[in-house]
């Protein structure tokens, strides 16, 4: 009976993995198709679609915008989120749990709602600069990821490490830089990774806040598909996928995948 349960569980796990990975495999395969049909390649492979990515109309500005917004919102979130996490875990504030919940709550909110809400809000306060509006919106998206990861990391962090640094000759700032930050490096890495990816591939929030000149890559990609559904988009998706996998592999080498997925201990 117990064995049967284990077999069933394993089957479910394998099926879930296949189900999740299948679309990615299809996309990757289609990107090597020699024909302009969005189809699985049967007669040999080709890289012609990859060479066409750069020629897509408005591709480079969109890519740059997405990277720029993702990097900036990640950096700002790291600073703000870490400070907030310190206040929540160490400050002995009344209601720090409520504060923590509020900080993480955008994670649970549908992006669509967030996008519409921000659009309305920007309009009502007369805020029309689309680039800064987009950055601000992405901060709302990335801050919860950073805050959540850093709250978890800091609640496990032993603050006597900083005192140990002091007794060994560090000044306060030195102890932060040489002890606290490197000891928390795994948390910083995980937080940055999630934050960057959440911003980079965000569609539902960005769509409400872009104008003709500021379009992020995901929005541009949907537009390409509507205009000309050839495998160029599959090629681009495959590159993004490969980039993500590479990032995850690097992070895994640095901190371990199970800690990233939150399945350790």
């Amino acid at each position, binding site marked *: 009976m117990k064995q049967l349960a284990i077999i069933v569980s394993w089957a479910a796990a394998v099926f879930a993995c296949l189900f999740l990975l299948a679309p990615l495999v299809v996309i990757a395969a289609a990107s090597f198709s020699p024909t302009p049909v969005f189809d699985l390649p049967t007669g040999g492979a080709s890289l012609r679609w990859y060479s066409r990515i750069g020629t897509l109309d408005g591709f480079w500005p969109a890519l740059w915008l997405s990277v720029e917004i993702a990097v900036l919102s990640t950096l700002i979130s790291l600073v703000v989120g870490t400070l907030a996490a310190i206040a929540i875990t160490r400050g002995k504030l009344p209601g720090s749990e409520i504060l923590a919940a509020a900080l993480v709550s955008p994670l649970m909110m549908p992006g669509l709602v967030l996008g519409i809400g921000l659009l309305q809000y920007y309009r009502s306060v007369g805020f029309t600069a689309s680039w800064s509006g987009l950055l601000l919106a992405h901060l709302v998206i990335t801050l919860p990821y950073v805050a959540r990861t850093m709250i978890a990391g800091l609640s496990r962090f*032993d603050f*006597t*490490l900083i*005192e*140990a*640094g*002091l*007794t*060994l*000759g*560090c*000044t306060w700032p*030195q102890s932060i830089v*040489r*002890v606290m930050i*490197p*000891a928390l*490096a795994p948390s910083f890495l995980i937080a940055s990774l999630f934050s960057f990816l959440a911003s980079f591939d965000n569609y539902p929030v960005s769509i409400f806040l872009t104008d003709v000149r500021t379009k992020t890559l995901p929005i541009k990609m949907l537009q390409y598909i509507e205009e000309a559904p050839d495998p160029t988009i599959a090629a681009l998706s495959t590159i993004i996928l490969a980039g993500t996998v590479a990032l995850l592999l690097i992070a895994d080498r640095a901190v371990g995948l199970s800690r990233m997925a939150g399945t350790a201990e």
Partner: protein
Amino acid sequence: MTAPDAGLHLSISNVSKRFGATTVLEDIHLGMAKGELVTLLGPSGCGKTTLLRVVAGLTHPDTGRVELAGRDITRAPPYKRNVGVVFQSYALFPHLDVAGNVGFGLKLRGLPKADIASAVHRALSLVHLERYADRPIRALSGGQQQRVALARAIAVEPSVILFDEALSALDRKLREAMQSELRHLLTQIGATAIFVTHDQEEALTMSDRVAVMYKGRIDQLADPRTLYDQPATAFALSFVGQSLSLKGKVVSSDADGSVVETSAGPLRVPRRFLRGSSVIVATRPEHVTLTAGDNTLTGTVVGATFQGSRSLVEIDAAGTRLTAEMPGRCTLPERGETVIFSWPLSETLSFSGEEHA
């Protein structure tokens, strides 16, 4: 303010510390000679850690002075004191390997790489971990981590080393081995050391002197022998070693001492008390014999256990449980038997009953 003693290496005088309404340290005085090991012994919450933190510079006292080698360091930050700490949680840096941890303080001082490497090797060989230099911290056992913490503290050659219950997380066997090793090591490097523990056996084994702490005060500061033979307070008596004690009221007092009426009978104590005052009369189990003597009582045997070199006899004397220690070879009384027992006046301890509520 008491004048600091010139010959002292570390001198703590008048130190008090409050957190809000609670007084955690109250008028602490402690002077230590160079190379001396003093143990702070006391129950949890009595202020031992706080006192260590004051010496390390991690907590500032409200009043009083801390001097190291004649220099006032009361307000000096930790990094200007050269006081090493082995933290209760070890506080090893998880992002560095063993050598990285041990060499941390040296690297900070800007020593050349080769000097750091040889100092790290020396410190690690003192704690017998030279082969573990490039292991990550999480790959070490509790005992090994404890030794890395020790090596890290001694690598920078501090003039004072503080140990906060450094051995309490280890199992008994390892702890005993570490006690004598640590004692040996400290003699070797000649550092003045304060050792915090709530384990009285550890305190007696390790220290030159023991400071018994109770509710933020030092009840008694004495060498282990004196502490055991002449405890200054009822608390010091009960916290260090086995004892038997009875509470009573003074019925008469003269130049030689007083007579205290206890529930089990009258007892003589070699100390004068006011008539009518409440007094605790006590002795150590090994001074009790099953014969009549100076202070003789009658009781019923409730149990006797043979323990090899000695035997313990539990006696109920008018409702008070007392333990007497007999040589292992002697014939033990039966359970339920009525016995007379006594101890000499010279081994009779007495404390004012109002000292501690």
